[in-house]
């Protein structure tokens, strides 16, 4: 036995490995992986388990987690509020992100093409991006103030042109749209920055070539600018879309999901199920569905990034 053992190559002692540096990468990465396991992966796995249980602590109904199989998921897909919130998510995530990206792209190009003065350009760029640095909650509060039904400045200004009584936050689609406006105000900077950066990296002589080739502005945009920025625009859209899964703060402060449950988005619904009804099992199921959705989006994003990068190399 011992002879066999001695003939095998022995794993180098830790000290040895340290001295020739092979452990260093693991020592560097280790703490981060450990922390992520403790504060993220671990809790998520626990919540995955909870999603298969019925657990309503703090309610008069249930006290301890009770395994119920896929009951919570069945509840979820048959739940009218959840389905409505997914539809809202589709509207907010679809139209809202499209709006942000389209507006951001137009602003970026207008800024790049039509503002020659550098100071002015940097100033506008800063103005358009500074709301991104605000807490979403604060941005939501600001827009709630603007949208106040009576005495709110938006309705006040509309009143001076004879348009009164717009209930900005008082219906499903207008409410979601109002939130979308606030969110666009805050986040248009992200697609703007990405597109602006992309446009700045395009070769100027290519545009000169297009002019020499006789291309109109529209053709230049359609055939040259847009195709080359398309990847970045998609990336910006995906980045914003991933945030839509997490959208909470503005909704919380601006409509609270109301009227009724009209403007609820899945995360907000998850919060209510989890922390208002203390239906932890159901909330866990809901958040896992959401989490998987956003990870799938991220994966698409990743794949897209790799093909884009692969394509240009």
């Amino acid at each position, binding site marked *: 036995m011992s002879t066999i053992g001695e003939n095998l190559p022995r794993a180098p002692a830790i000290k040895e490995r340290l001295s020739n540096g092979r452990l260093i990468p693991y020592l560097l990465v280790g703490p981060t992986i450990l922390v992520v396991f403790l504060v993220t992966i671990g809790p998520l796995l626990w919540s995955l388990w909870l999603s298969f249980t019925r657990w309503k602590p703090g309610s008069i109904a249930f006290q301890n987690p009770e395994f119920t199989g896929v009951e919570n998921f069945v509840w979820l897909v048959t739940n009218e509020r959840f389905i409505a919130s997914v539809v809202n998510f589709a509207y907010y995530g679809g139209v809202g992100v499209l709006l942000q990206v389209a507006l951001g792209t137009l602003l970026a190009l207008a800024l790049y093409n039509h503002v020659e003065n550098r100071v002015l350009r940097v100033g506008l760029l800063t103005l358009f991006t500074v709301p991104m640095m605000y807490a979403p909650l604060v941005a939501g509060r600001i827009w709630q103030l603007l949208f106040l039904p009576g005495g709110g400045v938006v309705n006040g200004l509309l009143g001076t042109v004879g348009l009164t009584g717009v*209930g900005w936050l008082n219906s499903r689609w207008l409410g979601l749209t109002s939130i979308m406006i606030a969110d666009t105000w805050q986040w248009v900077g992200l697609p703007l920055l990405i597109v602006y950066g992309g446009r700045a990296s395009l070769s100027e002589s290519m545009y000169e070539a297009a002019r020499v080739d006789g291309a109109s502005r529209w053709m230049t945009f359609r055939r040259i600018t847009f195709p080359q920025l398309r990847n970045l625009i998609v990336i910006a859209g995906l980045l914003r879309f991933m945030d839509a899964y997490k959208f909470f703060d503005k909704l919380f402060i601006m409509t*609270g999901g109301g009227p*009724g449950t009209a403007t609820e988005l899945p995360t907000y619904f998850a919060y209510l199920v989890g922390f208002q009804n203390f239906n932890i099992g159901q909330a866990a199921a809901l958040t896992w569905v959401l989490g998987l959705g956003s990870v799938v989006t991220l994966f698409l994003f990743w794949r897209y990034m790799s093909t884009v990068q692969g394509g240009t190399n």
Partner: protein
Amino acid sequence: MPSSSTEYGQGEREGEELPHGMSRRQYVKYFGAGGLAAGLSSVAGCLGGNESVTGDGGDGSGGSGDDGQKNIANPRDDTAFEGTTLRWTTDNSAGPLYSMFGPKISEESGVSFNEGKVLPPDNYYSSLNSQFIGGEVPYDIVLLVPLYLGDFQSRDLFEPLDKYLNNYQGMQEYLDSIIGPYKEFYMNYNGDTVALPIDGDIHNLFYRPSYFEDQQHKQQYQSEYGQELRVPKTWPEFNQVAKYFTENTENGVYGTQVFGARPWNFGWFMDRAASRGVIYFDENMEPQINSEDGVRALEHMVESAKYAPPNTAQLGIEETINQWQQGNVVMSPWWIDLSEFTARGDFAATGDQGSAAIPGWEQDDGSIRRNAMILYNRLFAIPASLPEEKKRAAFYAIMRLSHPDISMFATADPYTGLDPFLEEHYTDEAARQYTKPNPLRETGEGFPKNPPIFGSFEQARQHLDAGQTNMENGFPQPNWPGASQYVEDFAIHVQRAVAGQETPKQALDNVAEKWRTTVDELGRESQTQAYQQFIEKAREFGYVE
């Protein structure tokens, strides 16, 4: 401070002799007999009498800060709770209480208060609940709302207070003066007194006299509807007047407003529904909310929303106050303190507001049946998990705040949002207090000024009279365990109906459907039992037939 220590001398000895409150004999007497007697007396008191069954303490109508104290005994001496700091939480309205009256209580007893925690009003229950779940209750005094009392108390979160009540003199008199429904529906859980009231909510109808007295409006209304323009007495008349003012006033002024935000919007529906005889469940826990009368009531509320500012389905406490202050609405059914908020500043509605009975429905005999919601209602409770010392200190604090010596001024202060809950609070003396600054406080954080609420005694009296009328024709909110779940679904669908997303019928049918599920989920048997108690009491008070 020195003088009060001698006054409280008696109680101190009593407390020492009975470290855990009182003897068994006393306990049985006060708990068994007192509880029931108090209930009966309250009914009587509420209906106008001012009798006291036990009658063992001085003057029943007394409540002025100076002489009211003599009925209350300090447990030991003025430094009994020296070094004890109480941690408290409230919703926003009761926030300034501690800074207004805390110094006085500290002076009396040595107890002090921490900075406190104000929880967001729209999420008060869940914020509170999440803190209770996480482990120990991080507060010594918790502001409660009866809607959640059953939920919490089914988990025995709060300490029964009867033994502490018996530690002090004059408590029976104090308990007896608490207006009946508050005491019977909101303070008790399974026969225990688990909370003391700090607020007594009732809905009033508020209106702007300048509009109703305007000659041109009077004439125009007369010619349009063939009726006299007056503060409406019935709900159909209410909508007619609301419609008239919406159509015939300048931009931005509406006939009324509908409180649409969750969860309290259901109260505005019940204002209209209870007076049509609508109840939550029948004896077998079958939802009654979607009865034909219920649907008619909600249809009425949805119509009212047409004569209200935009977003009305989303408007909550602060927003509706704001609309009223800014003079954007001519009439508003609201909690009794709506007109108090205008005293905080120079608003359009300041000085131009009247109170009246909540409208009702005309009965076959020509009489009008009205039921105003007894909604929200703040109470103080003490977590059961506290050490005894803390509980005693905390009890002293909440008892003092609730006691007329302080609550007389708290309810008449425009910066508290607290409403009459004792019989004393409806007396002429109380009305006079509404015309004076609060003598128990200076200005401070959260109460920058100290104005009187009303300019004249007549105004104050009218305000309180309206409140008393409504109080006598009230209707209680759900309070049994699980109430918060019922109300959540209730509020969602009422809001949807007001926002036009569901027809009133659909909305109420949906509520009923959800409620059936909830009953099963929470346990049909225990729910039926709990609701029986509720409905029986409601019958005693004559709220249901």
